[in-house]
Every structure is written in structure tokens, then in C-alpha cells.
């Protein structure tokens, strides 16, 4: 079921530091790669997404880096804040709208 492999499972970062979460996929038919953020008791919410025709996308403090040949992509959170503490999921989908999620990374940002 898990067609997207995510690491690490958990991450602790100091306030102001950089958080990096990695994902790898297998299905070359995937053409849309989002990251979702989930707070306890809530559903996941879209944070940022990228398509394979670009290698990087930045939105504020959040950046996705994409390596098509390696079938890997990563999320970088710059200047991490305590409010960023949440679980982050990478995902991937193809033209069939079949969104598949990674296992998640629990991020803790210490003040």
C-alpha cells in the first residue's frame, strides 16, 4: 500500500533551525508531489506541492526540492518555529487521482 517511503519517523529541531524531511517514490507515473501538515485531532492540510517539471518550489519558509532521476523529493522548513510542530506527510499521485501518502514525520520544534 505504501508506495511512498518517508524518513525520518521523527525529528527534533531547535527554534530557528532547518527541518528536512525526505521521501522516495517508485511509481514513475506519479506527476504531482504534495506535502501535507497534520495537527493532533485534525485532518491533513495541504502545505506545498510540486510537479516534476521543476526541481524546486518555495513558499515562504517552506521549500520542496525534487530529484526526478533519483525519484526523491524533500521538504525543507527554514527558521523552524514551535508552531510548526506537527506531523508532515509526503504524498504522490498520477493522472488517475490516486493520492498515496508516506508514513509521516513527527516534527518537534523546541523553543
Amino acid at each position, binding site marked *: 500500500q505504501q508506495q511512498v517511503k518517508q524518513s525520518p519517523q521523527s525529528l527534533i529541531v531547535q527554534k530557528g533551525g532547518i527541518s528536512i524531511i525526505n521521501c522516495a517514490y517508485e511509481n514513475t507515473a506519479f506527476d504531482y508531489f504534495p506535502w501535507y501538515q497534520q495537527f493532533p485531532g485534525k*485532518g491533513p492540510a495541504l502545505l506545498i506541492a510540486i510537479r516534476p517539471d521543476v526541481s524546486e518550489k518555495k513558499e515562504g519558509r517552506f521549500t520542496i526540492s525534487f530529484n526526478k532521476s533519483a525519484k526523491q523529493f524533500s521538504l525543507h522548513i527554514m527558521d523552524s518555529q514551535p508552531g510548526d510542530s506537527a506531523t508532515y506527510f509526503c504524498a504522490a499521485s498520477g493522472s*488517475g487521482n490516486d493520492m498515496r501518502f508516506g*508514513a509521516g514525520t513527527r516534527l518537534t520544534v523546541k523553543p
Partner: protein
Amino acid sequence: EAGVVQSPRYKIIEKKQPVAFWCNPISGHNTLYWYLQNLGQGPELLIRYENEEAVDDSQLPKDRFSAERLKGVDSTLKIQPAELGDSAVYLCASSLRGRELFFGEGSRLTVL
């Protein structure tokens, strides 16, 4: 604009009892998903609807799970009979073009 609405938020039942979850997607969203989320895990797809048609139900345990989406709007997911291993959060999501998914807050099931 109202988001995806799910009910109930929490449900506690004895094993072998039936349970049903309801989802009202965002108005106009033709694609509806039901995901299972175990504690500490990512969402796993159970079933995906395009309008009222179930286009991907390969991961739905059909011996005990069933789903329907009448008139291509609301959807219901049913488990009968429930087993201890079904304890999880059941997430509903909808999308307009199958890219950005909008999730509800989930229905947390505890089977005793």
C-alpha cells in the same frame, strides 16, 4: 465555504457490532476519498469515488466494509461486523480536480 464534514467525530463500539461514518464533501467536488489512518501512520486509501462511481476500491476489505455515494454527493462508509483491528481514524477527503485534497477532521473509531 464549508469544509469537508464528517460524523460522528468519535465512536466506541463492542466488537462484532456495526458502525457507519458519514461524509459531506465540499460542494462541487466530484472526487471523494475514504482513508484509514492508524496511530502514527499515514493515510491509506480505502476507496475513491468519481461522482457516484467507485473507481478504486482495491484496498477496501469487502467482506466487512462497504461504502456508497448516492447522487454523487454525500458518502457513507460502513463496517459490519467491526473487529478490534478496525480501531483507527477514518478520514474523508474531497477534491475538485484530484490534486489538492481537502480533508475532514476524521471519525475516530474504538472497538472494544
